[in-house]
C-alpha cells in the first residue's frame, strides 16, 4: 500500500495543476479531484486487503494536505452573533419603540377630540 498510495498523490498533483494556485484553498473549485483522490486511496487500500480509513492511509492523506493546503485557513461557515454591546441595543431599541408606540396610540386615541 505504501508504494501504491503515492500514485494517487501524483495523480492528484497533476489534477491540481489545472487549478489556479489561489483557488487551492477553496474546496468547491476542485472537489471533483479531491473526490477522485479519496476514491483512489480507498481503492488502493482495498487492493491490499486493508480497511479504509486506516492509520497509514490517514497519515498519507494528511501529508497530501500538508503539501497542498498547509497555507489555507479553513474558513468555518460559523456564523456568530454580534458582540453584546451591539446586540443588546439592537434588541432593546425595538422593544422600547413598541412600548412607546403603544403608549402613543393610547394617548392619541384619548385626545381625538382635540385633534378634530
Amino acid at each position, binding site marked *: 500500500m505504501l508504494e501504491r498510495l503515492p500514485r494517487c498523490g501524483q495523480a492528484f498533483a497533476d*489534477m491540481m495543476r489545472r487549478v489556479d494556485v489561489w483557488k487551492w484553498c477553496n474546496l468547491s473549485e476542485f472537489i471533483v479531484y479531491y473526490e*477522485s483522490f479519496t476514491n483512489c486511496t480507498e481503492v488502493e487500500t482495498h487492493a491490499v486487503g486493508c480497511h479504509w480509513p486506516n492509520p497509514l492511509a490517514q497519515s498519507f492523506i494528511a501529508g497530501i494536505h500538508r503539501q497542498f493546503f498547509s497555507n*489555507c485557513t479553513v474558513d468555518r461557515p460559523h456564523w456568530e*452573533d454580534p458582540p453584546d454591546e451591539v446586540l443588546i441595543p439592537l434588541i432593546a431599541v425595538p*422593544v422600547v419603540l413598541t412600548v412607546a408606540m403603544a403608549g402613543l396610540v393610547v394617548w392619541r*386615541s384619548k385626545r*381625538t377630540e382635540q385633534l378634530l
Partner: protein
Amino acid sequence: MSPRRIRVKRGHLRKPRPRFQLMNRFTLVFLLLISPTPVLQAPTNYSEPTPNYSEPTPNYSEPTPNYSEPTPNHDSFLYLVGRKKLLDAQYKCYDRIQELPPYEGEGAYCNRTWDGWLCWDDTPAGVTAYQHCPDYFPDFDTTEKVSKYCDENGEWFKHPDSNRTWSNYTLCNAFTSEKLNNAYVLYYLALVGHSLSIAALVASMGIFLFFKNLRCQRVTLHKNMFLTYILNSIIIIIHLVEVVPNGDLVRRDPMHIFHHNTHMWTMQWELSPPLPLSAKEGKMDPNDSEVISCKVLHFFHQYMMACNYFWMLCEGIYLHTLIVVAVFAEEQRLRWYYLLGWGFPVVPTTIHAITRALYYNDNCWLSVETHLLYIIHGPVMVALVVNFFFLLNIVRVLVTKMRQTHEAETYLYLKAVKATMVLVPLLGIQFVVFPWRPSNKILGRIYDYVMHFLIHFQGFFVATIYCFCNHEVQVALKRQWVQLKIRWNQRWGRRRRRRPANRVVAAPRATAFAEPGGLPIYICHQEPRNAPINNNQGEEVVEMIPMNVLQQDPSAPQQDSSA
C-alpha cells in the same frame, strides 16, 4: 310610505357591492413581490470535464458520469449534495488533524481520526466520544448521536465481527421512519390547519364586508387582523407546498426544532426547510436569485407574524380606550391603529434583516440559534404582555363597575370583551408552555400535536371567535337566509305563510337593539349617535317592512324606531 315605494328603494339599497379592492391590492402586490420558485439544479461544478488518471484504473471514472450532467432527479441530487458534504467534512477534518495542538492529557488516548464520515479528536482511554449524526443522507436524523468508544489501551473500538475500527451510527436512522411518519402527520396537520384558517377567515371577511349593518370601527380592526392572518397562512402554505416535493422535509427533522429552540413562531417556518439546497450548503456559490427570494420570503413571513400580534394589540388598545378611558362619545381615529398594526412591524423586521445580513447571513436566514431573532420576538412578546395587561385592566374596570352599579350594560361589555379575552391567552399560551416539552415519548408526541394544532389553526380560531360566534353576525346571517328563502319562494310562486318567518326574524332584531344605551352587544361604536343609527335602522326597517306589511304586525316597526 307605501310599501311599494319602499320595495323599490330596497332594491337599490340591497344591491350588494362586495368591496374587495383593498384585499386584492394587497394580495397582488404580495404575489408580485415573491420571486419565482428557485429551480433545483445540480451544482455546476460537477459539470467540469472528468479527470483522467495516468494509471489506467477504470474505477476512478465511475463516479464522474454523475457529475458531468446536472440531473434534475432528486435522488441523485441528494446523493450529490450528501457526497459533497462528506468530502467537505473530510477536508476540514484533515485540516483539523493538522491544526489542533497535540494531546495534552495524561495516560493512554486514542488518536484523532477521520472515520469516513465524521472527525474525531484525541480521546482519553475508556471514554466514549459523542457527536451529532451527519446530514449526508436523507434518513439520518441530525438530533441523534453517534458514539465512538476509546478502549483502555488507547485504541478505537473495533467491531468484533469485522475487526475493524467502528463508530456507532446505528441510532442515526433507527427511528427515522417513525419520526418521518410523525413529521408527515404534523405536516399535513399544518397544511389542513392553514387551509381551513384561510377558508374561515375569507368567509368571515366576506361576511363583514357584505353586511353593511355590521360595519363599525371594531369590525374594521377585525378585518385588518384577519387580513394579516390570511397573508401569513398563504406564505406558510406556499412554503409547505414547495418544500415536500423537493424531499427536503425528509432531511430536516421538524421535531428537531422542539429540542433546540424556544421560538414557537419560527416553528411555522422551520416546518418548511430551505428550498435552495445549493445556497451556501456546501460553500458553493449560490444562485443569487434563489438566495434573495428565499430571504425576501422570510422577511415577509416575519413581518406578517409581527403584524398578527400587533393587530391583536390594536384590538386590545381599542377596547381599552373604548371602555376604560370611556370615550364613547367620539369616534376614534383609526389611523394610529393602522400605523401600529401595519407600519410599526416594519421597524423590527427591517432591523433584523439588516443585522442578519451583516452578522449572521446563513442559508435562508433559517437558523434559530442566533439571538438576533429576539429583535423581532422581543417586540412581539412585549406586545402580547402589554395587550394582556390592557385586557386585565378592562376586566378589572368592568367588574368593579358591575359590583358598584349592577348595570346590565356592564355585563354586556364584559360579554363583548370575552372574545378578546379568550383569544389573547390562546395566542400567548404557546410561548408560556413551549419551553417545557416533555421528554417522555408519548407525552412529547401529544404535546407536539396539541401545539401544532393550536398554532396552525389560529386563524380558524380567530375567525370563529370574532365572527361566527358573534351574536350579531349570526342574527344577520339568519335574516339573510330567511330573505333568500322568501325570494326563492317568491320566484317559484309558492305562497307560504310568512307570519312565522317574520316572527323569527323580528325577535332577535328587537332584542339586539332594545338593549340599554342602544349599544349592540359586540360594542360597535356608532357615531354620531343619531344619523348613522337611523340609517342602519332605516335599512333594517326598509328590509323589514315588506314582511311586516304582510304580517300586519304593528308592534315590530315601532320597537325598531324607538331603540
